[in-house]
């Protein structure tokens, strides 16, 4: 693991040393010439990015990458995945190893500025929570004074955790392990009293990894804002636009009521907004440097945001909550595609 982290750091050093000429070119051009998009995903978080029984990657973070591939190539399968730990992810993106980082990553000011990244938008609004074994009979995070807490390093979680305990004048002992499997083993073996990460992660872990999901409770306190979204490298505006509008297209499609099942019937819709969206009129796609049917391809092959949510997260027990469309009282809002 150290070796891998060191490898990524080494890769960054090499890339920064050698990649001067590659900078002039947009990632959009390099992606088109190599014929696939390199997508950095989680090492395995159910609902976000995890390989299924056939080895196919599934999840809403994976769907974001598939949407971009559909927009660029008209083929959502032209992807290669690199599973990344929390510590490897930024270096992998900075060094050019991956073209998109779509790995339940929190958008913060520090990351947006000093890490040389640009966050594209938000594909899941989240917050940090705590999970404890039910037999501990803990009802609130305020009762966690003195607890041992399992957490992954290099995350905003690690910082929020320290902030929260400091603010509430409580003490805790962290057990910090990089690999998700190892940190979960430590929690389920009782090495820690508490496991903390984004609530989405807790729900996914409880449903997919716990020996008996009913033995673990998620405490009511949500201690932070965690807007999770994809990121690209700083200073490459064309590629930034492509990824950003691919995300918006999935949200806009849901708002327009377009799904993978009904988009073919809507190709001849009289609605001018839909006409522009599917590329029947206007040249929206060309402005992005893409095929004019880019958005159609996204919806046809990947589906809209709601479909992706229902397919990946609803079966695990996720509630749409604040991730509903703005028209339904949620936060999901796409600027107009025109």
């Amino acid at each position, binding site marked *: 693991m150290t070796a891998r982290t060191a490898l990524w750091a080494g890769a960054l050093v090499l890339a920064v040393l050698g990649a001067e000429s590659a900078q002039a070119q947009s990632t959009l051009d390099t992606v088109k010439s190599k014929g696939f998009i390199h997508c950095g995903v989680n090492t395995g978080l159910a609902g976000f990015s995890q390989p299924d029984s056939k080895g196919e990657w599934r999840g809403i973070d994976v769907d974001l990458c598939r949407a971009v591939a559909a927009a660029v190539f008209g083929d959502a399968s032209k992807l290669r995945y690199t599973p990344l730990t929390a510590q490897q992810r*930024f270096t992998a993106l900075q060094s050019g190893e991956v073209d998109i980082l779509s790995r339940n990553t929190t958008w913060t000011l520090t990351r947006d500025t000093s890490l040389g990244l640009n966050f594209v938008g938000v594909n899941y609004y989240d917050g940090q929570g705590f999970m404890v074994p039910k037999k501990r009979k803990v009802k609130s995070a305020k009762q966690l004074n003195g607890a041992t807490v399992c957490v992954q*390093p290099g995350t905003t979680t690690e910082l929020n*955790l320290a902030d929260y305990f400091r603010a509430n004048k409580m003490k805790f002992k962290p*057990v910090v392990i990089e690999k998700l499997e*190892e940190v979960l*083993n*430590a929690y389920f073996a009782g090495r820690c009293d508490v496991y903390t990460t984004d609530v989405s992660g807790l729900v996914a872990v409880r449903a997919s990894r716990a020996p008996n999901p009913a033995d673990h409770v998620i405490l009511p306190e949500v201690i932070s804002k965690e807007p999770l979204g994809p990121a690209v490298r700083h200073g490459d505006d064309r590629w930034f636009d492509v990824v950003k509008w691919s995300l918006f297209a999935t949200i806009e499609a849901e708002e327009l009521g377009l799904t993978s099942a009904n988009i073919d019937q809507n190709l001849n819709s009289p609605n001018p907004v839909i006409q522009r969206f599917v590329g029947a009129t206007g040249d929206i796609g060309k402005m992005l440097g893409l095929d004019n049917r880019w958005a159609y391809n996204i919806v046809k092959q990947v589906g809209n945001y709601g479909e992706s949510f229902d397919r990946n997260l609803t079966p695990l027990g996720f509630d749409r909550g604040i991730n509903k469309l703005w028209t339904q009282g949620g936060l999901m809002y796409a600027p107009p595609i025109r």
Partner: protein
Amino acid sequence: MAREFPRRSGAVRAPRTSWSLNDARVRAFAYQVLLVAAVGLVAWYLVSNTTQNLEKRKIASGFGFLSREAGFEISETTFLSYSAADTYLRAIAVGLLNTFRVAAIGIVLATVLGTLIGLARLSRNWLLSKLAAGYVELIRNVPLLVQLFFWYTVISENLPGPREALSPLQHIFLSNRGIVFPVPRPHPVHPWLGVALAAGVALAWALARWARRRQARTGKPFPVFAAGAALVFGLPLVLYLAAGAPLELNPPVLSGFNFSGGGALSPEFAALLLGLVIYTTAFIAEIVRAGVLAVDRGQFEAAHSLGLSRRQAMRLVILPQAMRVIVPPMTSQYLNLTKNSSLAVAIGYPDLVSIANTTMNQTGQAIEGVAIIMLVYLTISLAISAFMNWYNRRIALRGAKA
């Protein structure tokens, strides 16, 4: 290195003023200047290109982040107190001290155990020597990382939770939170016990010097070891008893989620120390065995015929010669143990690499972070090497080239 270069004799030396390339010295000088220039050029290119690209990608650079607040907690600290409100610099220092702690204890334990097992393998007792051989072959052929995971799993998954902790002795609890044990409450006599110990060591050293001189002069031996041990352990003990043997313990008590009070060894530290010591012991055992075998049997027989006992022969004749063979490879093992301690990342012990990794990730400054890690390990390794080389020179045969 340049000094070792064979000098040409004065007879064939070209005239001083000649700057012709036919002169071997001028050529050699020119090559060296070219080489230094090339290395310098490459270094300059790498540095300037890196800074340029970092700037272009808007990745922050420089070491300014070291004075910013770290914001993350560290589970265990050695000597230095730390909280999330402290700086990155302090966090890294805490990591460094944690590395030192595990490396220092590991080196001492591995040396003692390795010597015992190495000598056991040479033993004339069949069972003992085969057991030692089996240990060495088993341990040194399984990767260290696997062993660390093994020990960590054994400790964290097989031991019960703190509420059901095992208690082999009163006030000592064994659970998946580690081992907690009582420590004596602070008492005014404690610092003086340390002083007494230091005084005991100094007196024992002086005694040994005096005994050696006396034996050289008169030939009369003196039981240095027993007397020395009595001084080292006896002085603090006498002082302790004189102070009224104050024994007030601060026992660990289960409160809330965990034990409070007393001292504790975390499972991460225990697993790392166990893994490193067991692994390195196997290599040290082989080094010790090789060192003893390297001494000619005739030395033993010669010592015998001088009338030395078996123990005296071992201590005065065999071991000093074996040490010459043992010390250089032993240095490598010490360096290996120290560097292997960075595998702590895998099992969550907050060593230097673990904390530097977190720092890199929170600040995004990978190049600076890697530079700090490299610099620190280089410094530690060079320091250990320097010490061992000094020791090696001390024990080398007088007049022999090591």
